[in-house]
Structure formats: C-alpha cells, structure tokens
C-alpha cells in the first residue's frame, strides 16, 4: 500500500525535524501546562455558579485544555506546508510519485503523537493539582482519540488554506479567525447549559465542542457514557471530509504553478 508507506516515511521526516528543534519541543509541550494552570486559577470560582455540576474546576477544564491544544496544533500545520512550498520541498514531492494523500497525512500523524504526549502531561499534572477522573485510562484514551480526530480535520483545512493562499500571514489570520471563536463557542471553559442559548445552538454544530463533549464525558463518567459514541462519529466524518478537501487543494495548486 503505497499511500500508507509514504505516510510512514513522511511522518518520520516530520518527527525527526521536530525533534531537531529542542526549544520548540519544550515550548509546545509546556504551553498547555501554562494554560491549564492559568485558566484553572482564573476561573476557579466558576464551580460555585448555581447549576454547575462538577465540584473541581481543574477536573472540568482538563479535557478542554487537551482539545484546545490539539486543535491549535492542527491549525498551525499549514505553516509547515508553506515552509515546504517556499523551500521547494513540496514541488519535489509532487514531481516524485509521492501519494498525495500521504503528503497530507504525513503532516497530520506526527501531531497525533504530540497529542498523545501532551495529553499524558496535562492529565498527569491535573491529577497532581487535585483533578479526579472517574473515566480512568479508557476515558483518557477516548479523549486522545477525539482530540486527534479534531486535530486531523483542522490540520487538513489549514494545509489546504496554505496550498491555496501560500502566505504565512493568511494561515495565521485564518487560524485566529476560525479557531478562537470555535473554542469560545464550546464548553471548553464553561458548562454548556450556563452559556446563552445561541451559543448552545451553535455548539451543536461545532467540531471543537463535539471533541470536548465526548472527551470530557468519557474522562469524567467513563468511555461508554451516552454522547461519547455519537460525537466521536461526527468527528470521524469531519476528519475524513477535511482530509479529502485538502488533498483536492493539490489540484488547484498544480493548476496555478
């Protein structure tokens, strides 16, 4: 299976290049820790709002931070595509018989590895500062899967935007314009039924909220709780559609060179 083999080769390339930048590795792993502690301290009293059903905000926030980190990591994926475009690496891959899908997946799968490590660090730290997760390891596994699916979808869109617009500024603008609202129009920081009705309505169609709902439910109540399966399936569809769209973007790119 050529596409699969090519994905492995390109994933190895990404991971190796990533590890060659030790400061970047440290920073990208440290960032979610900072968010967890900062937001955790800032919104500590949120749990006292009548109707809030979790009694530890850290417990509530942890899956939100995991999903948020995964989503933004996916968002910045297009920057690597632009770097490859500018350096001629993309053209070299396209002129070789490289599987187009693998060029996309080779950028996305390294992120799944990052998410794995990030999740372990965030959940571990949350446990240290008093978070309690009834869902156990199975719940954490679900959180990782949904974060990865969301990240794959968002990364593919980011890669597609990068191929079409070919400017770093465009990717930065698109990421900030799209992802911040998706984050705040979700239950990442606040229990959904405490948010205004229109946000609740929007959140139903928000992939970030699908991931947070599924991940949080699994982590707090167990992997087989209701809502986990359906939201995970939505995310599978989201990831597949986005990857397909991004692969289509190659055609548009090749028409324009």
């Amino acid at each position, binding site marked *: 299976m050529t596409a699969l083999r090519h994905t492995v080769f390109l994933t190895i390339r990404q991971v190796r290049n990533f590890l060659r930048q030790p400061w970047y590795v440290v920073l990208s792993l440290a960032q979610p820790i900072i968010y967890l502690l900062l937001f955790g301290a800032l919104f500590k009293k949120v749990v006292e709002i009548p109707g809030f059903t979790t009694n530890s905000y850290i417990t509530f926030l942890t899956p939100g931070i995991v999903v948020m980190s995964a989503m933004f990591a996916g968002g910045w994926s297009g920057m690597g595509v632009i770097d490859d475009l500018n*350096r001629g690496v993309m053209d*070299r891959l396209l002129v070789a018989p490289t599987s187009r899908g693998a060029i996309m997946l080779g950028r996305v799968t390294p992120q799944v590895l990052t998410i794995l490590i990030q999740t372990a660090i965030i959940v571990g730290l949350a446990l240290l500062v008093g978070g309690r997760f009834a869902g156990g390891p199975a719940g954490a596994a679900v959180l990782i899967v949904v974060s990865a699916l969301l990240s794959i979808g968002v990364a593919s869109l980011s890669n597609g935007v990068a191929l079409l617009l070919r400017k770093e500024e465009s990717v930065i603008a698109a990421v900030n314009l799209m992802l911040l609202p998706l984050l705040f129009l979700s239950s990442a920081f606040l229990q959904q039924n405490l948010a205004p009705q229109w946000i609740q309505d929007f959140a139903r169609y928000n992939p970030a909220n699908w991931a947070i709902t599924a991940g949080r439910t699994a982590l707090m109540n167990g992997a087989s709780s209701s809502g986990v399966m359906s939201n995970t399936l939505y995310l599978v569809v989201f990831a597949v559609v986005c990857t397909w769209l991004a692969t289509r973007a190659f055609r548009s790119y090749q028409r324009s060179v």
Partner: protein
Amino acid sequence: MSENAIRAQELVKTFPKGVRALDGVSFEVAAGSVFGLVGPNGAGKSTTVKILTTLSRPDSGAAEVAGIDALRHPDKVRRAIGCVAQKSGVDVQATGRENLLLQGRLYGMGGGELERRVDTMLERFGLADAARRVTRTYSGGMQRKLDVAIGLIHSPRVLFLDEPTTGLDPEARADMWTEIERLAGEEGLTILLTTHYLEEADRLAARVAIVDRGRIVAQGTPDALKSELHGDAVHLELDAAETNGRVTAALAHIGDVRDVTVEDGRLLHARADNGARAVPVMLQALEAQGVPVVSVTVARPSLDDVYLKYTGRRFEEADRAEVTR
C-alpha cells in the same frame, strides 16, 4: 520507447492574471542527448519544465516524456524522470543522507540496494564527508549538488535540470558543468537543461532552443545557429559620441563589412566574414573621417548574437528587463 525522449507540442499556458507564459512551444529531444532551453528570466523555460515534469498542466498542447503521455499518465512519467527544479528542493532540516534516503523510498527503493545507491551518489557528488550534516549548513554549491543527486537517486531515463547553476559562484558553476558533462556521457540518459547563461548551453548542449516571451524563436545545434549569422562580430568603442551618419557613411563601402549599428553613439557593432582582416580597413576609414577609436574587439559569433538576431534585443537587456519588471 520512441526515438525522442521528450516531445513538446504547441504548449500554451496562461496564468490566472492573464499572463501568457507559453505561447505555443514545440520541440523534440532525441534520446540520450543534452538539450538546452535558453532564454532570459521569464521567457517560459521553467513553465515548460513544470509541464513536462507533471507539476503543472498546460491550457492546450501535448507533452510526451520517455514515450509516455505526460498529461494522461503523469504517474508513469514521474517514475521515469528525475527533476532538479530551479528552486532547490533540499529539506534543510534533514541531513544529506536523509534527503537521499527519503527520495529513494518514495520511488519504492529500500534496503541494502538503496543504502548502496545513496553511498554511491554521496561519493560521486563529493558529499560523503558532509553526508551526516544537516543540509542547512551546506554551501549553495553543495545544496545544488545534493539536488542533482536527489534527482538521480532512482536512475531516471530523463533528467530535467532547471537552471542548475543560477546563483552559484564561478567555482561551483565550473564544478557543476563538469558534473553535467559526465552525466551527458552516461548511457541513454537524456538531459533537458534550461539556463539563462548562453555560454552554458553552448558548452553543454548538443542542441539548443532559444525561448523568448513564451515562444521558441530559433533552434538547432549551437554551431548551426551561429553559422547562420555569417561571420565575426566586430565591436569598436569610439572616443566621443558620434553622429550615426558620419560613421556608417565611412564604413559603407568597405568590402564585406555589414550590419553596422551604433549603440549610445559610442559603441559600434558590425559583422564581417573575416573580422581580423576587416579591422585595419575599418580603422583606416574611421581615421580618415576623424573618428578616433578607443578599443577594438573581434569575436567569433556567440549565442548572444543569435539571440540578438532573432529577438532584436541583446540578451542581457532582456534578462535585466525581466528581473526589474
């Protein structure tokens, strides 16, 4: 496989902003030969290469590479060709060795066969000592050599070299020329070389096509193109700005001197069957008219002269005009 390794037929390509990059480009490259596409920046050389290497698609026309229709079966063409793009494709965060290994694997190579091939290429391009260094630390010349090694890793039948020496210092360029000459001697390898250095095409290519503004204006062997010009170029630098009339009048009746033009009033260009014999006579005639001469150059015809003849512009001017456009 057909006798021609590359066939481009009436290629037309217009970019989204309405810029017509190619306006009916046709040429054929015989298998096992080196073919040079020569022209200033922006003439359409790279666009032609991008179409033939399946990176880009033309609006109309046909392209055949290694006997395969490049528009209908791009995948098959990709397996048969190697490509060194104008822009280096080296992954600067990877080592030279890692770059070569990845490229080989994308072509389905692996195991000991690939290891040996990578070692051979590193050795051959003088990169063995730097093989385990991240390529960010390579000089421009080394990166370019690695580009060629990457293009050759899977032993392609047709190799595209898009401006392989642009931006290299003279020493690295001479190195690259030696390398290309060595490649050209290899059995069965067809090379399409683009360059905006006329002397490069003259030295390396068996046949050249001169491209200007998306069209091929002349093609043939370098010698045939130059002999069409009939004679040597004579360049005289005049001491003071001269009126065209007096100078041309003085030279009008001298034996085989023809095509007299004056540039900026001070540079006189002419053509003669035998430049060395014509010079003393020309000098005498100018002396008689009271037009002092500062310097004299006689040159065998160059591809630059060919370019001038077919496009009405000097090559360097066209090149500069495109850069500053």
